[in-house]
């Protein structure tokens, strides 16, 4: 009926590309996604009913510039900004426009070109910048420190998480960092904000990703695309409040809110997932995401890390790990994070996995995938794809 299927996906590798404008990155990804759907830009005209462009730093009319270069204007083109969840938000709007019957097919593209280093964001007031209260890694560090204490984890677990993602990222031609690293190297990298060292933090960078959605129930289906914002009260929330309640145990984090919606919409639970791409802006964030998505209990992250290592160690095969394969793309720690493109890049990876075309990173017989982002706003997105 009004199901939504993924007609095509496309990606421009994530990295740093000198003077190449963001528009060119977006055109590359959108063109690839249309081709993957079997359409030339000329074919797409008359089929694509609307376009959503996810970007946080692209500036005015980013989507129009991409669609203009493809001669696909005339349709509604809307830029979507929701921090790290921009891609997930654009996908949610696109899916809703198909489910409502408004459009037969929609193009979703994410583009970003960001400078190196700590992100400058208009989210913070000038006085907060002047006071040094705008250091994202510092907020990540406070969250990581509490996670280690509350879940009984250690700095070695943070290092092991980086080793895991870099190990898979080495097999991803679209990633910025394609070399494996050791825990010793991670723990020897420069301290940014204790306990987080440089290699435990993802790098803001450049890239683009695109997804073509259309009405249908074939191939890879978009089973859920949920977006939620934070509830007030938790001092460590991604909304980075200046204060919170001492008792915040009853305040559900935005990731869990979005995941609960997505599981309900898709009719699946965490136990049904084969492959997951989740937010790893820092190593602690991924370990916390596992818990918030319901992939493991508090303090059980070490078991999943061990299972992934065993899987990668070649033993693999026999039955696979106890949970889903997580961040087989190498995650943001390997790919870098072009804000507007990162969430759609996760979906591109999931679709490749569900189609059985993920090469060295392939999860055998992957049928259910979940993509997750959380960040500025706070916004959290959870997308579920199935086949």
């Amino acid at each position, binding site marked *: 009926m009004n199901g939504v299927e993924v007609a095509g996906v496309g990606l421009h590798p994530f990295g740093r590309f000198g003077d190449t404008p963001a528009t060119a990155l977006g055109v590359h990804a959108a063109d690839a996604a249309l081709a993957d759907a079997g359409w030339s830009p000329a074919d797409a005209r008359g089929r694509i009913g609307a376009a959503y462009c996810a970007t946080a730093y692209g500036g005015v009319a980013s989507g129009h510039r991409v669609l203009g270069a493809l001669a696909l204007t005339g349709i509604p083109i809307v830029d979507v900004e929701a921090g790290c969840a921009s891609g997930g938000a654009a996908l949610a709007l696109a899916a809703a426009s198909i489910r409502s019957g408004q459009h037969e097919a929609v193009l979703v593209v994410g583009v970003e070109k960001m400078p190196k*280093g*700590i*992100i*400058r964001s208009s989210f913070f007031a*000038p*006085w907060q*910048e*002047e*006071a*040094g*209260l*705008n*250091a*994202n*890694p*510092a907020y990540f*560090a*406070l969250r990581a*420190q*509490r996670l280690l*204490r509350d879940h009984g984890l250690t700095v070695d677990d943070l290092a092991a998480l980086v080793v895991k993602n870099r190990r898979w990222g080495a097999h991803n031609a679209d990633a910025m960092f394609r070399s494996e690293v050791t825990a010793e190297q991670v723990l020897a990298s*420069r*301290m*940014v*904000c*204790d*306990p*987080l060292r440089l290699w435990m933090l993802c790098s803001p960078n450049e890239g683009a990703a695109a997804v073509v959605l259309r009405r249908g129930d074939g191939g890879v289906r978009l089973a859920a695309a949920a977006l939620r914002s934070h*509830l*007030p*009260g938790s*001092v*460590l929330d991604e909304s*980075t*409040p*200046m*204060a*919170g*309640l*001492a*008792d915040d145990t*009853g*305040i*559900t984090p935005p990731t869990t*809110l979005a995941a*609960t*919606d997505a599981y309900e919409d898709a009719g699946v639970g965490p136990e049904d997932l084969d492959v997951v791409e989740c937010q790893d802006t820092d190593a602690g964030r991924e370990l916390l995401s596992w818990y918030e998505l319901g992939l493991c209990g508090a303090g059980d992250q070490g078991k999943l890390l061990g299972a992934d290592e065993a899987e990668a160690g070649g033993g693999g095969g026999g039955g696979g790990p106890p949970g889903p394969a997580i961040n087989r793309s190498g995650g943001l720690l390997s790919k870098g994070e072009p804000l507007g493109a990162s969430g759609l890049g996760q979906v591109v990876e999931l679709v490749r996995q569900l189609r059985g075309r993920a090469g060295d990173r392939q999860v055998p017989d992957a049928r259910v995938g979940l993509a997750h982002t959380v960040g500025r706003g706070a916004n959290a997105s959870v997308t579920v794809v199935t086949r």
Partner: protein
Amino acid sequence: MADRGPEPEAWLADDAGGHVSLPRTGSLWAWTAVTAAPPGYEGPVPYGFGVVELDGVGLRVVGRLTEPDPSALREGQPMVVTTETLPGGLVVWAFTPEAMSSTPPSPRS
């Protein structure tokens, strides 16, 4: 979609719209140090940064810490509010270990 969190009344000012005086003391709940200047910041680095749970009011507050060495701090350490003046003249709240403000610091372990 049932989970909407605390009722809004908990977050809005009372009818009088008045100010609430917060205690000057609390205990350290989370902390780190910022080792590279974030965009727009021209003060000294490294600088301490953390969360203090204020005494008796059930609130946690984010702020600068006067101690830039994370290994010199511990969970639950008594802290007191002070202020810091930054190069542009901005005065901000900050937290300092209580012992350091009145008595010599204990040896670092």
